[in-house]
């Protein structure tokens, strides 16, 4: 892999607008513009715009491609109606998580179905490798897919004002696109793929369109959003928002060694689907065993945040052996205290359990196990 980070079609805009660029999963991405707290609050109270063009976008078209995709992911494609989006996994042979993905049924046509797979930027190469490997087998030789990551851009418009702001710009009634649904639309004559999805815990849309039109759309949304108090948002706010919403992040809560059971995400696996998928058998065998450690939420009695790798114990002091580790942690702008996710033995998962987090081997902070998510929007 080359060391020069990839750039999204919005790179020039980010640089011209004080975006602090960092290398993330091989891409040069803005971590923040005005400040994480300000951007976070814009999404919770008004509307925020994110460049998520670094996410991998793969199109699977045709009957053979559908079979390949069905084998790749943990969801039963046959059960997904046209225009629906599902969260699922690509698993390894041991049932550990290779990636967490969104799959959309763009066309249900039995002769020529079409699917969109959105994968994590950090895992795109890995997924492409698995696909190539699968294509070596006779069953999938004729399957084709295309990687549209570079030819398409993707932005997320998130927040309570997102719908009101977007509605006058598109040629369909956004109410028709319910949660986790997707549809093609024309946005001021430009074809866009809209889906009511996101990674913030707020109402909002993800928009895919041609990379050449990305800057045009971004500028249009920033301009039309002005009266709604829109802010451009970076990966920093994306992380604090998803953490409050209790959503896992690959590389933190999800990894090759963690099963969907341990992550508390068994509902995103169609375990008994007839068409076998990668990792299915391993996971079926693990069905009866309880995972040793499970994902929990921790509310800290401090503004100081626990960070990835910090140890969770029964109490302060050397007498208490570590129980598990923090996988993500941050100050929560909405709750105005520190929050974290951690993996702990099952017997500590009950909400209300009082524990202690050791910050970077120095200070112990009391922490309470709480039900996820930390934040849920009023519907």
């Amino acid at each position, binding site marked *: 892999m080359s060391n020069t980070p990839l750039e999204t079609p919005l790179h020039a805009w980010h640089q011209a607008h004080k975006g602090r660029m960092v290398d993330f999963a091989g891409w040069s991405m803005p*971590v923040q513009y005005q400040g994480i*707290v300000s951007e976070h609050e814009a999404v919770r109270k008004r509307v925020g715009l994110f460049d998520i063009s670094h996410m991998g976008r793969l199109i699977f078209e045709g009957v053979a491609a559908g079979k390949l995709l069905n084998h790749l992911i943990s969801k039963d494609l046959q059960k997904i109606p046209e225009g629906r989006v599902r969260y699922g996994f690509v698993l390894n042979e041991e049932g550990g998580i290779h990636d967490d993905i969104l799959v959309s049924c763009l066309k249900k046509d039995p002769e020529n179905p079409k699917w969109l797979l959105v994968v994590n930027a950090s895992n795109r190469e890995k997924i492409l490798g698995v696909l190539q490997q699968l294509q070596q087998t006779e069953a999938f030789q004729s399957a084709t897919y295309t990687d549209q990551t570079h030819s398409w851009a993707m932005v997320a418009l998130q927040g309570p004002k997102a719908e009101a702001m977007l509605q006058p710009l598109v040629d369909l009634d956004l109410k028709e696109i319910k949660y986790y649904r997707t549809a093609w639309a024309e946005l001021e004559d430009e074809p866009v793929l809209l889906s009511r999805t996101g990674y913030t815990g707020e109402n909002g849309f993800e928009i895919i369109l041609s990379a050449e039109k990305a800057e045009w759309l971004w500028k249009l949304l920033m301009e039309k959003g002005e009266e709604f108090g829109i802010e451009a948002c970076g990966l*920093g706010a994306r992380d604090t928002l998803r953490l409050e919403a209790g959503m896992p992040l690959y590389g933190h809560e999800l990894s090759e060694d963690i099963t969907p059971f341990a992550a508390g995400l068994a509902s995103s696996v169609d375990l008994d689907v007839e068409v076998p998928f990668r990792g299915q058998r391993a996971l079926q065998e693990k069905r009866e065993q309880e995972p040793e450690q499970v994902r929990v939420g921790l509310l800290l009695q401090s*503004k100081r945040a626990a960070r990835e790798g910090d140890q969770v114990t029964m109490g302060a002091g050397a007498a208490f052996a570590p129980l598990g580790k923090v996988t993500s942690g941050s100050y929560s702008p909405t709750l105005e205290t520190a929050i974290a996710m951690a993996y702990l033995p099952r017997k500590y998962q009950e909400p209300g359990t009082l524990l202690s987090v050791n910050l*970077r081997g120095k*200070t112990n902070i009391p922490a309470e196990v709480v039900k996820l998510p930390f934040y849920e929007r009023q519907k």
Partner: protein
Amino acid sequence: MDPKQLRYAETHEWLYVDDSQGEPIATIGISAYAVEALGDVTHMELPEPGADFSSGDSFGEVESVKAVSDLYTPVELEITEVNTKLPDNLNWLNDSPYDQGWIVKGKLKDPSQVEQMMDFEAYQKLCDEEQH
């Protein structure tokens, strides 16, 4: 304090030396550029008076939403005074990084170490380079 009269470390601390009390006393804070780069600061961890630090030691922590950063002393120092009101008034870092936002004062063990620090002009150049 006039930022043009201060000395700077590569790790973005500023230092001012007061010679008026007989022995040189250093005041240390972090630059406006560093405050801006940290983003929203949520917590500070400061030392106790009497603590000794060698040049390059971490004497505290500043925590923002995104990360925890160490505060480094660019000179050998015995802490005499700590701005204990600062952790409860973190906006001073933004509003007044060179006055109200001072962090610690301490006895300089080796005043020649100050001479090795950057002046304002050299520090500006470093910040410009970091931005590009």
